[in-house]
């Protein structure tokens, strides 16, 4: 019985670590390019999040399934090919389903293939764990990534456009801070969110001491 319990908490930890503890963006600082590039609108962020989630889940599952078949020396190229295949699938699907969002960010969707998070998870986790754990890991990381992207894009869209998912939140007569949707705004947002995460960590560290 004890065994099962630890297993269960283990599973939950596998799932939840991507939310905060090992948040891919704010803590591990991986996969930053798409995060910054597409986070000017919440809509874009969601599109990117879903595509990313899809590729990460599929590649993690596939790699953990075929891990025994791949010789060690060529594993990285193999991983890349698997990931690239799923990116192609995601890219074609999005082109078909949400063409206008895709048109805005096709470059960054294609670049998911070199996203360090996905390759990193494949190398560090999926190639060493079973399918179920790998899937949980992917879900956790995917949710963590998408949520982070959502937070960043929400901040940027609200301050930079005065809207949220296209709905006006801030009255027209208060001018939005346009710079937030430009490149510097992306850097500032992520910089200060990282500082916030640091602050929380410092506070927690002090309490535990």
């Amino acid at each position: 019985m004890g065994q099962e319990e630890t297993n269960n908490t283990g599973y939950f930890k596998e799932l939840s670590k991507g939310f905060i503890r090992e948040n891919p963006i704010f803590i591990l600082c991986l996969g930053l390019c798409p995060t910054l590039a597409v986070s000017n609108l919440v809509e874009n962020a969601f599109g990117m999040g879903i595509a990313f989630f899809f590729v990460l889940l599929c590649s993690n599952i596939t790699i953990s399934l075929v891990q025994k078949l791949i010789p060690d020396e060529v594993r990285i190229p193999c991983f890349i090919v698997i990931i690239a295949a799923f990116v192609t699938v995601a890219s074609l699907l999005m082109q078909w389903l949400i063409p206008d969002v895709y048109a805005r960010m096709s470059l960054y969707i294609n670049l998911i293939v070199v996203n360090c998070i996905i390759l990193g998870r494949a190398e560090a986790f999926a190639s060493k764990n079973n399918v179920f754990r790998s899937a949980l890991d992917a879900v956790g990381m995917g949710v963590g990534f998408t949520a982070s992207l959502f937070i960043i894009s929400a901040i940027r869209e609200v301050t930079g456009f005065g809207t949220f998912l296209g709905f006006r939140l801030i009255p027209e007569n208060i001018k939005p801070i346009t710079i937030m949707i430009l490149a510097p705004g992306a850097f500032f947002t992520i910089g200060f969110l990282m500082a916030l995460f640091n602050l929380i960590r410092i506070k927690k560290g002090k309490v535990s001491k």
Partner: protein
Amino acid sequence: MTLGQIIALFMGSVFVQNFIFSRFLGLCPYVGVSKDTPSAMGMGFAVVFVMTMASAVTWGLYRYVLIPFDLTYLKIVAFILVIASFVQFVEMFLKKAFPALHRSLGIYLPLITTNCAVLGVAFLNITQFETESYGFAKSTLQGFFAGIGFMLAMLIMSGIREKLEYAEIPEAMKGLAIVFITAGLISIAFLGFSGFKL
């Protein structure tokens, strides 16, 4: 191709649409390897080299293989494979031919495979210059200039980070937080180049 076009391409890829400060490509190595100027320089040179060559190779591959055989949907797989094997080849070649250079650049080369700036410039090239005349030359030049822009960004950031090591940065801002704030301020300065007429 006129000199004006070359200058326009240069200004565009180095300043106006800098890969780091405007296009957000190659951020992982940018924040990872910009701690000190010598490594930033090494990474910069490696990126310039690989980006130039990758631009040339992928454009040719796309124009003369993928388009004629109607395989453009395979471009992601094809490009990443070409770049990965190219980087591998370069590394082996350097190791044999120029061991000294390999020692200084060697550690950066494997990182470049997953540098999205390299793949990014390949994708940009085929969308921008697919049908243009001088497409090959423009692609190669864009790759080269984008690499220069990347190196410039690396050098600027590494200089600042060396200086920040001695600054009394607040505890919460330490680490990558202040790097991103700095990058934001640099990209504000780079906004000055927007709307360049050439």
